[in-house]
């Protein structure tokens, strides 16, 4: 059964052309009859299906709509066209440490972040020690997050996000975070999650990692699917461009 199903998904937003961030300016321009706006198409006509245990990579130049697509999958952006259906629990790792608060302690952050992801407080509480240990920050868990180094924050966020089994993992460039040892460790955990049946959507500029990890690849260009198919063929074409 497909875990993710996108049908003709598009996302368009409206931009006012004269840098209007203020009502005053908008009013002045409106009086002069000079309000111009364009509909900016960030994404259009994207369709694909993803099955459990499958890894799909999204590649493309900056501004091609990769992150927009990931946000639509995460449910953060409601698509303005088409339909996006995700069956199962999502672990969004669009930015490590989003939802973390500087003034809260490590323990509180893990709890808060987990609750945001829809986990039960009771289950998480018993897991906190293990999460801290895996991230290698056991000694710091009772201190405010601002005393953590940025690497520690990233490790803790990754450990929290991947602690409970999810059906879909959305990953945005995070495999390049942290030192070599942590990268190895996080790769191992990703492989383990994939083996256990999680579907992964991966956004990356690291074409070598894409080749190693994903089975299929979507190449986005200016918000449209330029090519979609087996990773080898798509990445070859992308590199040859």
């Amino acid at each position, binding site marked *: 059964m497909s875990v993710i199903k996108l049908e003709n998904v598009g996302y368009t937003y409206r931009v006012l052309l004269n840098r209007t*961030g203020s009502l005053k300016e908008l009013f002045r321009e409106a009086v002069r009859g000079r309000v111009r706006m364009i509909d900016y198409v960030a994404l259009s006509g994207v369709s694909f299906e993803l099955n459990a245990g499958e890894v799909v990579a999204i590649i493309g130049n900056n501004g091609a709509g990769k992150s927009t697509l990931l946000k639509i999958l995460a*449910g*953060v952006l409601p698509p303005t066209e088409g339909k996006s259906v995700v069956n199962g629990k999502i672990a*969004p790792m669009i930015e490590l440490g989003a*939802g973390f608060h500087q003034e809260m302690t490590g323990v*509180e952050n893990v709890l808060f972040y987990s609750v945001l992801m829809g986990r039960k407080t009771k289950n998480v509480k018993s897991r906190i020690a293990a999460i801290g240990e895996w991230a290698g920050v056991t000694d710091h868990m009772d201190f405010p997050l601002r005393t953590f180094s940025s690497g520690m924050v990233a490790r803790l966020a990754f450990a929290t996000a991947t602690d409970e089994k999810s059906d879909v993992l959305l990953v945005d460039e995070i495999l390049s975070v942290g030192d070599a040892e942590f990268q190895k460790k996080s790769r191992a955990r990703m492989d383990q999650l994939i083996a256990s049946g999680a579907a992964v959507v991966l956004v990356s500029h690291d074409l070598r990692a894409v080749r190693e990890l994903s089975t299929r690849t979507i190449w986005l260009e200016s918000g449209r699917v330029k090519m979609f198919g087996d990773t080898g063929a798509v990445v070859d074409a992308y590199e040859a461009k």
Partner: protein
Amino acid sequence: MTLRYKRSVLGIGWTLLNPILTSFVLWIVFSFVFASKLPSGQQFAPYLMAGILLNTFFSQGLMASAESIAGNGGVLTKIYIPPQIFAVSAALAALVNFSIGFLPLAIVVVISGQSLSLWLPISLLVGFFMAIYVAGIGLTLSIMFIRFDDSRNIVSVLLMISMYLTPIFYPVSVLNSTMQSIVRWNPLTSYLEIFRWAFSNNASPSGRDWVFMVVTSIASIAIGTYFFKRRWPKTVAML
């Protein structure tokens, strides 16, 4: 969500102090002018403080609610959480502060020689309708706050106008008839009249006030959620 507010418990002391101090200052200033205009047997201090408490609830709750979604944009664009939760929980937090304010208000009522009303629990009902009213306007404004930076300034000016159009430190009877009818059309006046009556029998709300309170709060949340739902998909891109 509770975890977030746990941290601000220390701030409650300040939220209590703020209306008390404001009341005290205004009491000194206005008690000479308006105290004699109240119907006999009614004290100015509880009249004034009830007004300030409710107005603080409205203006601070509204600002917090409207700001909550823009303020949490970082999280909202990374993890899916229904954004409306932020606006509603800000309004509820303001309701909690409001209810905490009952304590000093009760003390003032007793000291000034009046007695608490038997209908006191109705005050919470007023607070409930007010929270819905605030959340509805807050949802609408949160879209504006994200789109237009200067809408904050406009809203704070409007809040000031609304404060003067609410009989907080003056009795409605001191106004001329035109002003009276304007003030009567301010929904806050109805909320306040009912609140004063329920808390310490400091006003006599009419049936119209009750209808006005219920209708405005339901209309506010209905319009707010509809507008938000329609506008959110295109607004979230600006966070």
